[in-house]
């Protein structure tokens, strides 16, 4: 390949940048995101800050963002087909920012006691987590977007403060982006990179015309939206770029090697989530030659990457096979696979047409979204089932698992209610707290109406509430039923006393409970998991009617713990499944680690497919497979069967690590010896060496240990 040397150098540089991030900042339990460090000497103070060091308000966000972009260091690499990298995240420059709890300029202390009681991740003040429609930006360019905003402002009465403010802030945002593009273009020119300079000078105002320009435009939007508030949702990349690719190719401007190199640089630039393959509105598959080139570019990348292949009846076997081969041969934990049938049939149950369901695609860790149409708070709002169980467990002097379940269900109902109230509060105030200045630009509605996406500007409001710790709680009920009620080896009092002391003086009780039947390995375990999931789903859906809003609200249940299994576990004491206090909760919809002696992936595939809430959001299967000594062709055939079967059984999304158990154990002991080891932590990929010891342990423990 003509670009081999450049690709090698770019990959090497990426590793150096990753190592430098680790050296300067320590562990990072998140996606790599593709960002790079600013120069060590770089200092910046935002112009608008509240007395507490945070900031909020529509105009303030616009002003601060523009200032940050105007001062953002430029990034030009002569090996790269694209320029620009992001170095800061404005949303995290607020004092007291925490990943699970954002600063919020409005008092919701009235909700905090219940949120704390049930360890709810409320999502109040959380941003992004819905998807832009890049087609809007690719058509208009930054100049076109600016004109659109200015026209809208001119048409808006001065008395309408909300809409005027939003338009002014959007102008600031675009001007900030244009400034960074211009300064970067000038730097490229200074370095003698005439073509890059020319492309970027054009992109300050004009929409892209060529594939390279389109990739650069997408990269700029990604950079800007990351700097603004992390964002991260990409789009259907093989459809977005297809016209540019085909035009360039027909005109003889590029060949496939050029296209692969541009795509490589786009994927290297940022780890945004892209989907390839899958049906269009009418159900016709969208795979094209470009889909294969995207996969080819991803294989050259050998870094963190979040591409999902949508599996449906019309997906060409070749793309499916290439995706599976990529996972098996490269062991870089991508691509992921989503299951069209269950996603679509679930989403239409919310009253939407199938055509719309097909447009709702995989653009985040666990989430599906309608690009440019939907505000959804995906992966932001979580109910920790284990904490809810603990409240019921401590409050109820148990006479039976049925009585305990009734108490659990009552508290779960309260937890869902307070979660709904939190969403309502967020929807009422988020536009003033933190408008979605970047994502608004690529949405249908916010600019046209002058209303932020969080405040009625979007077309649809399908809001996600995810349950976490399903297996932990299902296993607790199962263990009590087995050991206390069926076998009568223990009493409820025995177990209660043991959990109160974290099994300190009761190792036998702990062992007995830990060795009980579980979700994934027994009918009773499965029954408890199904019951919890079904009750939770019904409660979530019913709660929608209690959320006052200018547009219809749909609440969609899912099961997902993100990488919060450690954090959510820390708040929960010992459980009747033998879990010690503070240990991580179970992962998403997965059965507990070690749920079977043989660690059977087939049992896992089947179990997770059976607990899908079924309304268009996911309960992803997090699958770690060690194919041992199977050759790649055999392993690929087995993996394809696992994927097909999971989706045939009703599965929605698969995040897969093909692991070498020995290698990952060695890497856990000496992470820095494996600087290029990539793992899919949950929905996202990360450099193993950059994870904290807790997270490394989490990944290692999940590795399926096969029986002899």
């Amino acid at each position: 390949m003509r670009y081999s040397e450049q690709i090698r150098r770019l990959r090497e540089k990426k590793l150096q940048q990753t190592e430098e991030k680790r050296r300067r900042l320590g562990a990072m339990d998140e996606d790599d995101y593709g960002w790079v460090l600013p120069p060590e000497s770089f200092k910046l103070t935002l112009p608008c800050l509240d007395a507490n060091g945070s900031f909020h308000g529509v105009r303030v966000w616009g002003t601060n963002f523009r200032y940050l972009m105007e001062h953002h260091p430029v990034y030009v690499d002569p090996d790269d087909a694209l320029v620009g990298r992001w170095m800061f995240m404005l949303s995290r420059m607020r004092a007291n920012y925490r990943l699970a709890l954002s600063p919020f300029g409005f008092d919701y202390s009235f909700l905090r006691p219940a949120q704390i009681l049930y360890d709810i991740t409320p999502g109040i003040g959380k941003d992004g987590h819905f998807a832009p429609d890049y087609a809007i930006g690719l058509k208009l360019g930054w100049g076109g977007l600016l004109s659109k905003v200015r026209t809208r402002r001119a048409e808006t009465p001065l008395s309408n403060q909300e809409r005027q403010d939003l338009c002014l802030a959007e102008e600031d945002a675009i001007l900030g982006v244009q400034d960074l593009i211009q300064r970067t273009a000038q730097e490229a020119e200074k370095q003698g990179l005439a073509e890059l300079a020319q492309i970027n000078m054009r992109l300050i105002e004009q929409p892209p015309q060529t594939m390279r320009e389109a990739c650069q435009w997408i990269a700029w939007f990604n950079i800007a939206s990351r700097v603004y508030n992390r964002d991260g949702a990409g789009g259907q990349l093989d459809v977005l770029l297809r016209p540019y690719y085909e035009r360039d190719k027909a005109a003889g401007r590029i060949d496939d090697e050029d296209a692969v190199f541009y795509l490589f640089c786009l994927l290297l630039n940022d780890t945004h989530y892209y989907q390839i393959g899958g049906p269009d509105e009418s159900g016709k598959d969208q795979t094209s030659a470009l889909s294969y080139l995207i996969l080819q570019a991803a294989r050259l990348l050998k870094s963190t990457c979040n591409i999902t292949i949508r599996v449906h009846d019309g997906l060409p076997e070749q793309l499916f096979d290439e995706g599976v081969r990529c996972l098996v041969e490269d062991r870089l934990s991508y691509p992921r696979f989503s299951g069209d049938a269950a996603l679509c049939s679930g989403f239409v149950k919310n009253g939407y047409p199938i055509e719309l369901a097909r447009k709702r695609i995989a653009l985040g860790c666990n989430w599906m979204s309608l690009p440019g149409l939907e505000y959804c708070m995906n992966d932001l709002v979580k109910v920790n089932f284990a904490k809810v169980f603990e409240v019921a467990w401590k409050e109820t002097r148990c006479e039976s698992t049925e009585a305990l379940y009734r108490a659990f269900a009552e508290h779960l109902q309260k937890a869902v209610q307070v979660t709904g109230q939190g969403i309502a509060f967020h929807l009422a105030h988020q536009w003033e707290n933190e408008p979605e200045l970047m994502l608004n630009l690529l949405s249908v509605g916010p600019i046209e109406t002058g209303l932020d996406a969080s405040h009625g500007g979007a077309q649809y409001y399908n809001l996600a509430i995810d349950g976490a710790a399903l297996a932990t709680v299902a296993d607790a009920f199962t263990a009590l039923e087995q050991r206390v009620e069926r076998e009568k080896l223990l009493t409820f009092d025995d177990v209660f006393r043991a959990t109160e002391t974290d099994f300190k003086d009761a190792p036998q009780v702990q062992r007995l409970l830990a060795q009980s039947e579980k979700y994934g390995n027994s009918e009773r375990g499965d029954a408890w998991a199904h019951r919890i999931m079904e009750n939770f789903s019904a409660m979530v859906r019913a709660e929608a009617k209690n959320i006052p809003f200018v547009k219809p609200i749909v609440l969609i249940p899912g099961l997902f713990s993100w990488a919060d299994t450690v954090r959510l576990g820390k708040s929960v004491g010992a459980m009747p499944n033998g879990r010690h206090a503070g240990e991580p909760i179970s992962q998403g919809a997965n059965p507990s680690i070690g749920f079977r002696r043989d660690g059977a992936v087939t049992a896992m595939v089947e179990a997770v497919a059976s607990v899908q809430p079924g309304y268009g959001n996911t309960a992803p299967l997090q699958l770690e497979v060690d194919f041992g000594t199977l050759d790649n062709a055999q392993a690929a055939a087995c993996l394809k069967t696992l994927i097909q079967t999971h989706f045939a059984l009703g599965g929605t999304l698969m995040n897969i690590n093909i692991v070498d158990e020995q290698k990952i154990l060695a890497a856990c002991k000496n992470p820095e010896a494996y600087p290029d080891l990539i793992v899919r932590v949950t929905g996202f990929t990360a450099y193993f060496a950059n994870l904290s010891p807790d997270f490394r342990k989490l990944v290692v423990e999940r590795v399926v240990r096969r029986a002899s």
Partner: protein
Amino acid sequence: MVKGWVTDIVRGSFHDGPGIRTVVFLQGCSLRCSWCHNPETWSARPVPLFYPDRCLGCGACGGSAERTDRCRFGARVLSSNEKTAEAVMDVIRKDRPFYSTGGGVTFSGGEPCCQPDFLLALLKQCQAEAIPAAIETSLNYPIDMLKTVLPFLTVLMADLKLADSERHRRATGVSNELILKNFTALQTVPLPIIVRTPLVAGVNDDDANIEQTIGILKPLKTLMYYELLRYQPLGQEKVKALGRTCPTFQAPSDERVRHLCRKVRDAGLPLYMDRKKV
């Protein structure tokens, strides 16, 4: 209802035949290979095992090896449980959706043919339900037994530890006369066959043994491949749990293994080494 002694059922195996498989391990074996991975299966009936690291010292067993029924913590266990064929089929059926890429069920052991009625009942049921079935077998039984099970198999996986009868007897406790007769019978059987040899240094990793083995395998018209497996000390924990002394074995050196692989390849046999195509 036919019942049998089942030591384990492993779902979702990638390593016991083609595709994704459910492996049913049955009690009983007629060989006594000192390096055996599953020595608890030697006896025709279940035997007690004791894993001291799992023992919490509760005293329920009174220190008696036989009181496995009293242990709740998995420290004292029986090597197998009695199950009906239907109960085993219930587990097999769970993995059925995964059999599409050439997978199925594998009956292993021990020697699955040591429980002929139980095995046959399971094989018949698998055939009735169109579930592909294989056996992992030592072939150490009269030819009639082989003829009985063959019609129900989609794959046969046979071990051949040593080609020389006397050496076979010294290493496994029995001569290989029946085994070799069965290999001869397999020459005319239209069934895919996989033959495996666990390579143990100083026991069967010499040129002569492999050359003789090649001679036995060459006439097999339906041989899918011959597989060499380096010895791994997987059975040691179980040997200790049985209260026996664990003999020490070694895997052959990489160089030795490469040399033997060359011999097999030069003879024109399709070869796998440690489950990888060579």
